[in-house]
């Protein structure tokens, strides 16, 4: 998938990944790759501007932690971030269902 197509959904994807557990940047990239089964291969560095933007918006919090002997900046969803993640998921489901209905309409749905 093209980078430009992914960029518009990056914030929502990062929020969705962090719904599971707090994670550091590299871990999020790995998780994104794993969940998309290698389909989403975005430039890894682009997640940092997104993470910092989300943190400034109060949707994420972060702190330095030592994980596996390495010091890392770990991100977690704030309460507002958790709500935003839920809202974006609902919004995406409605949107993708509508797009899907337009792109591949069922035979019964045709006038």
């Amino acid at each position, binding site marked *: 998938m093209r980078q430009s197509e992914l960029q518009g959904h990056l914030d929502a994807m990062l929020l969705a990944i962090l719904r599971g557990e707090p994670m550091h940047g590299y871990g999020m990239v790995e998780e994104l790759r794993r969940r998309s089964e290698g389909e989403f291969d975005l430039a890894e560095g682009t997640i940092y501007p997104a993470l910092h933007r989300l943190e400034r918006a109060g949707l994420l919090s972060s702190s330095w932690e030592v994980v596996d002997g390495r010091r890392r*900046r770990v991100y977690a969803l704030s309460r507002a971030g958790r709500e935003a993640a839920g809202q974006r998921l609902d919004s995406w489901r409605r949107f993708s269902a509508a797009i899907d209905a337009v792109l591949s309409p069922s035979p019964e749905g045709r006038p």
Partner: protein
Amino acid sequence: MSLRRRDGRSRRDRNEDARPSIDLYVKELSSQLRFHGLRRWRIVREVRDHLSESASDFERKQRAGRGSAEHDAIARFGGARQIAAELNARPPAHSRAAHRLALLWVSWIAAMGMGSATVWAAVEWPTTAGARSTPGAVDARQAGSKASHARARSSRSGAKSAKARSGVREKGATVARKGTKAAGTGAKAARTASSCARGARGNDHYSVAATRPRRCT
């Protein structure tokens, strides 16, 4: 002409490989950032950690050399200019507005604090028993001062001076008691007011030893 070795690579090529790619990349990214301080330090640290971990993973999985692992990690990370440009991007308008509002709020609080401090400093503080001047105490001092002036006038007036002084004293004390009551700030304030009134009746000064002599006016 550059000296070539058995593997067909020049000494310069080999030196290029030996250079710490991640360090160079991070340096370039840092030079492109338009912000400083903690934020810059943090992003540089995060990027370095990310690249280092990515290179280590690649090195382990692909059994590659460190140099090529670092190059691969950097290639996957994206161009330093592009990342820096995204990091430099201004926050959206609503975020800036919230920032301004917060700044305005903090400024207002600071101004109010400074104003209060100035007013507080303008009020004279008696130093006895740590008591503070209060509006009631100030009233009492003013009343006492008036009493003092009246006493001076009455003493000049001749035969009735003693009687007049007595009356004025009573009046000063009454006003002082009223001022103390109005202040309503407890026993310390009351003591301060009474002390002031006594001072006014006496020598127009606080009758306490203080580092700075203070007047009751």
